[in-house]
């Protein structure tokens, strides 16, 4: 029973990892940009949520309504203002620039919020649970997983059923030809980053309710996001969810064997899958 419990907790945790990964996956899929600052943007969103809850005295889920559009707007401006200039045939400039961005965000957060760990207060929701067949499942992890499924389904819908998604795929396929179709790729990229950071806002706030955070934890979230994307297969959003679930389950099962093995078990499973299936478990499918 303990093992089953650990497995289920891990699966639910995987929902959060899938949310970390979804924005990363979307950005790479549309514009071949590896965003090193992604983890720090998640932490930034958590701090924005924290400030909103404290200043306005609202619940973190209400704060989301403000943080999501704010992060989306930030994403669009960031893309049009800086990141578009780095995109080209060379993969190195966007890597370097987003690495620099990561350093800047971390230090700015340190300056404003200090290095003390913070946590968002979600009230009774944090400890509420339901009992299912002898297992006690936290409402918050269940909600996180549910949100992750809804977000992935929503992104999938946008990608394959809307004009915006068509533009994303067309620009990803061939930027020049997409331009001939009247699509300004700089604008399309801006919209992709806005969407990715809107998802990041949700991920950051859920993270900030679940655990305490400080300005330095972005790197770790980036790694989890990367691992989920790679396990699932690049460019496949449902695969990303599966990747998050596998990573989460590996971590909690590892922790069950020995608490010190939590992160290690996740990394080992990641490396194992990378070794046997270098393209991930579910490589890109076309809708």
């Amino acid at each position: 029973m303990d093992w089953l419990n650990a497995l289920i907790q891990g699966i639910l945790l995987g929902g959060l990892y899938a949310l970390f990964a979804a924005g990363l996956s979307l950005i790479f899929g549309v514009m071949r940009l590896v965003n090193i600052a992604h983890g720090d943007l998640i932490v930034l969103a958590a701090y924005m949520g924290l400030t909103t809850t404290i200043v306005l005295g609202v619940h973190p889920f209400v704060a989301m309504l403000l943080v999501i559009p704010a992060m989306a707007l930030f994403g669009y401006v960031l893309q049009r203002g800086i990141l578009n200039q780095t995109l080209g045939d060379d993969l190195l400039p966007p890597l370097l620039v987003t690495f620099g961005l990561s350093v800047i965000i971390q230090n700015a957060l340190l300056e404003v919020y200090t290095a003390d760990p913070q946590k968002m207060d979600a009230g009774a929701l944090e400890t509420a649970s339901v009992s299912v067949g002898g297992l006690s499942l936290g409402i918050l992890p269940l909600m996180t997983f549910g949100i992750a499924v809804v977000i992935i389904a929503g992104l999938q819908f946008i990608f394959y059923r809307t004009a915006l998604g068509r533009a994303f795929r067309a620009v990803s396929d061939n930027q020049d030809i997409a331009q001939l179709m009247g699509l300004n790729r700089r604008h399309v990229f801006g919209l992709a980053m806005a969407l990715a950071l809107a998802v990041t806002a949700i991920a950051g706030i859920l993270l900030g309710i679940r655990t305490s955070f400080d300005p330095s934890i972005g790197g770790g979230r980036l790694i989890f996001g990367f691992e989920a994307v790679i396990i699932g297969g690049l460019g496949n959003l449902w695969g990303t969810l599966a990747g998050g679930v596998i990573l989460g389950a590996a971590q909690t099962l590892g922790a069950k064997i020995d608490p010190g093995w939590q992160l290690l078990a996740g990394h080992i499973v990641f490396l194992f899958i990378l070794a046997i299936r270098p393209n991930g478990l579910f490589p890109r499918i076309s809708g």
Partner: protein
Amino acid sequence: MPEPILNIDRLDAYYGDFQALYGVEMTVQEGEVLAIIGSNGAGKSTLLRSISGLMDNDADQIRYRSEPIGRLRADQIAKKGIALVPEGRQLFPSLSVEENLVIGGQVGRKGPWSLDKVFKLFPVLEERRSVASTSLSGGQQQMVAISRALMSNPDLILFDEISLGLAPVIIKSIYDALPGIVGEGMSAVIVEQDITKALSVSSRVYCLQEGRVSLTGLSDAVSREEISRAYFGVEQ
């Protein structure tokens, strides 16, 4: 003479240090079909890429309906009514046949062309509307590429090597469809390797040689000798 729809004035084009076009002068009249011929590397595709905004040019080097468009981006030019059917078809592999067509129509210009109308022109595309564009034959892909350009309801359509790599029977069916396309009052520029084909569908012809215009004339008036001289640059 009426104002030409497109006026190219001393156009130079570069790929890095390499100069691909040298002082090209060209006009396209409203409603005419213009052919551009020339050997590989003569600059034909570069010329079409310049017109459609995929190359950087000076503003005044290309004028469309008297407006300088040389500096505009390709998406801005597409919205003004110039469409390119690119060499090698270049469909979007992640998009279905229908999505490839719809995205062409997304430019947002009004006109006679719609999904129904291109399906009438190429009925096979309607049967295969929901399959991935990569699963079509070369000829069908070319039909999609042409239809995708038509969906934007352009006033000027540029065809780059539409018969390249296709079977003769397919080439014939595509050229048979051409009068129905330009009959709508559209102007067209056709880049074609097959000189006989190019001359038969066009009213005027330009020959490019090493980035320069080496011959212009009425398609039914230019002689074989003139063309081979302009094409190869040697006296025969």
